[in-house]
């Protein structure tokens, strides 16, 4: 099936097998490998992207469902190689170790901060509860998000 999708401001047209997951489309067909796969059940959130303004797990959607959609991935966050304040905060607070969950964490936190510029600690934890990290124990991630909350 033909799919037209805009990812990080660039329009792509591809012929896609109907059963292909959006995450595999992003990674394999568009070579946007920043979003990751950490499970096969929708639990881990490493593949989180923003889809028409809404945070989704891209392993829980088919690529064909993205037809006409506007998708934002981790590759689209920094402009001209300049890290966003959230990305900088992750660096300052040591909110990443292996970095595998990080793209999903950043997308979840970005979606949260757009909706709520000054979330409480509890709201941050709730917003990140769909994202698994096995390295950090989350403390520094929550602290990093808190530090950019207004």
């Amino acid at each position, binding site marked *: 099936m033909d799919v037209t999708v805009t990812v990080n401001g660039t329009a792509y047209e591809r012929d896609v097998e109907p059963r292909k997951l959006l995450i595999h489309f992003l990674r394999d067909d568009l070579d946007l490998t920043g979003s990751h796969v*950490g499970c096969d059940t929708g639990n881990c959130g490493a593949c989180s992207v923003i889809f028409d303004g809404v945070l989704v797990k891209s392993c829980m959607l088919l690529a064909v469902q993205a037809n006409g959609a506007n998708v934002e991935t981790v590759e689209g966050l920094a402009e001209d190689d300049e890290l966003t304040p959230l990305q900088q905060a992750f660096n300052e607070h040591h909110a990443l170790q292996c970095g595998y969950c990080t793209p999903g964490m950043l997308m979840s936190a970005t979606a949260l901060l757009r909706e709520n510029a000054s979330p409480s600690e509890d709201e941050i934890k709730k917003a990140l509860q769909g994202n698994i990290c096995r390295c950090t124990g989350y403390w520094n991630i929550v602290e990093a998000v808190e530090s950019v909350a207004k």
Partner: protein
Amino acid sequence: MTEMTETVVAPAPVEVQKGWGGQSVRRKEDKRLLQGEGVFVDDVKRHGMGYLHFVRSPYAHAHITRIDVSAAEAIEGVYGTLTGEEVAALTEPFFQISSAPGANIKDYSLAVGKVRYVGEPVVAVVAETRELARDASELVEVDYEPLPALVDARRAQDSDAPVLHDDAEGNLMWTGLYSWGDLDAAFAEADRVVKIPELHFHRFNSTPLECDGALVEYNRGVGQWTIHTNNQFPGFAAIMMGPAMQVGLDKLRFVTQDIGGGFGNKITSHPQLVVCCLLARKLNRPVQWTEWRTDFHLSMSHGNERWFHDTEVAVKDDGTLLGFRTKALDDAGAWLRYEPLGGVIWAQVTPGLYRWRHIELDFTQVATNKAPVSPNRGYSRMQHLWFTERVIDIVARELDLDPVEVRKRNYIRAEDMPYETPNGCVYDSGDYAGMLDLALELIDYESIPAKRAAAKDHGKLLGVGIGSTLDSGTNNFGQSRLINPELQFSGNNEVATVKLDIFGEIVVTLGTTPQGQGHETTAAQVVADILQCSVDDVHVRAGHDSYWNSHAGFSGTYASQFAVTGLSAVKGATEMLAAEIKKLAGAVFGGVPAEALELADGGVRIKESPDAFLPFMACGAIVNANNAGLPEDLDVTLNCRYVYRPPFEVPDVERKFGNLTLTYATQIHVAVVEIDPETGAYEIVDYAAVDDCGKRINPQIVEGQVMGATAQAIGAAIHETYEYDEDGNLLTPNFYDYHVPHALDMPPLATGALESPSPFTPLGTKGMGEGGGAGIHAVCAAIQDATGAIVTDSHNPYQRVWLLLQEAHA
């Protein structure tokens, strides 16, 4: 929700340009990882590559009577298959670490004739797309003749138990008696003998978020494979794979960049890598394999499940511990992929943190119809330390003594360091009582009685528990001889190269395979301090490549050793480079001796006349591209390779005695839990983790390791378990059923640190990163304190706590 507490010893922000060591320098790795520009194994693509999918066993134990791949191979887009029969024809069985009977088993990279656990790879299918490979796998016909399954290791040696490996003539894989001191005298001297019939440490692992994977290319012309993989110990994979595939190690090139967590669980992917290699050669195309999460849970590197039976502890009435005897039973699962090394690794921490001198442990490892076990963060020591800490709290309860007092009475003291344990290990440094005091202070121990009363007022039970980890690092591989005296391994090593390139670039290459430990950053800190430049001027290559010539037999990232082996190699290579720079500058300046020169501000200068300055760029250019006229005898390449070799002796095999690891980082954790007595549900309401890993090169990275290990411990203590039903089906094969903690599960945490530099290492550092065990015990002890029931299992979900409460009532 309680607020998080601030770190007590806060990492200071870095503003200075000199003295990089000890500073929380921001990580060099982060920029690419934060932008999705890391290169993980599944990101590597090649033209024409095929995707590999494994057909796996649905039975825990069965004969394979027929395999037919023809329907799968007939599909367009399916490139080919590989069966166990082909593997058995093309390869030798993997070398076994064990002595007999474990030595006799025949382990191939695919099941041959028989399956021994649910999820065991039986056939590999390679196709044009991942989806097609999965579809085609469904068409592979395998006929099985099911056999009874052995699930409970305690039944493994019963006369009617199903036998996994006929070659071993039973399920016993390895057994060894460890005995040090004078047990009879200790028990004669004891006022009391505390008996503990059974303790059980459960099966789980660290579930790195990235599963295993590889992209393997075969260069037919030279008969060489390039293995892009996230295996975290390529040195081990190579010595397993080379003999099995009957090729020299020069034919196996391992390449890695970023790895999405390892925790030991990515050490034993060599069987899958062999399958990829065979198929890349057979199909003459690159083969890509990415493990699915369910596959990982079913088959990869479970942590060692262990029982301690018939434990007897010799104690004095005042709580002085004299010694113990116990029988450890270890469940290896179906294959010995790294085992039975767990049968000796625990002995690195034989007495735990305590001064008892008379210890006997009868270790037995058996095979069962479950996934093979392999290293998991805190490998084998975690089980043993949990046992020693459990003993302390059970003794304290039996003698009606304060667990804090019993610990302080028996801790090895700061003034005893370096301390030789009953089995000849040498604890390098540490102040356990000081660490405990700091941990108790962090949870405001004084306030506990009032909090206990307040909890009671609102119908809750409050309990406090202490746990510890001795994070023994830098293995002496000679310990493998205690398992099998025939083995010719000993010592340890790690490599680094440091060079100055044409334009003055300082380029560092490591032998390690980091998975988030920040090696690029800490290596740069060590280099910058020696060369007197900025960390920004130091370029540390990301990842590992066998073709860089920067690895040795034990290279890799595992077992808490980078801060010792890796950074000592970096230090050695950088000091060689610094000496060469001075030698070169001395010649350029017309015969100035090295003592008259110093490195400063990105160059070398004459101390007495600093205007005579040669920038690194000039040094690199002269040697590499403008060397005519240099003195003939000037022995300078500005490309220095150093192999760090820790000072070890081969252990005494007869006495099972010797120094098994170089350093002992320590963690003491304290947990405070609040339990709902009606349901057994509980919450960790306060938590402190204190770490001492000697000199910290980057305190923020150290604290990150402490936090991560703490989170894994909490997950293991409460939620995470690989449980099997009686037929050998894994009940927790994915993240739905295997609950790993998320952000809302995390308690408030206070961290603290002491620094007791290691006297045995070039930088005073100790390897660290495996502190997980402390938390598991701290939670167990807190539950015991709150409920009054003796906790005998490392895994305490709410329903088990409810049962404990019923037990305490009865």
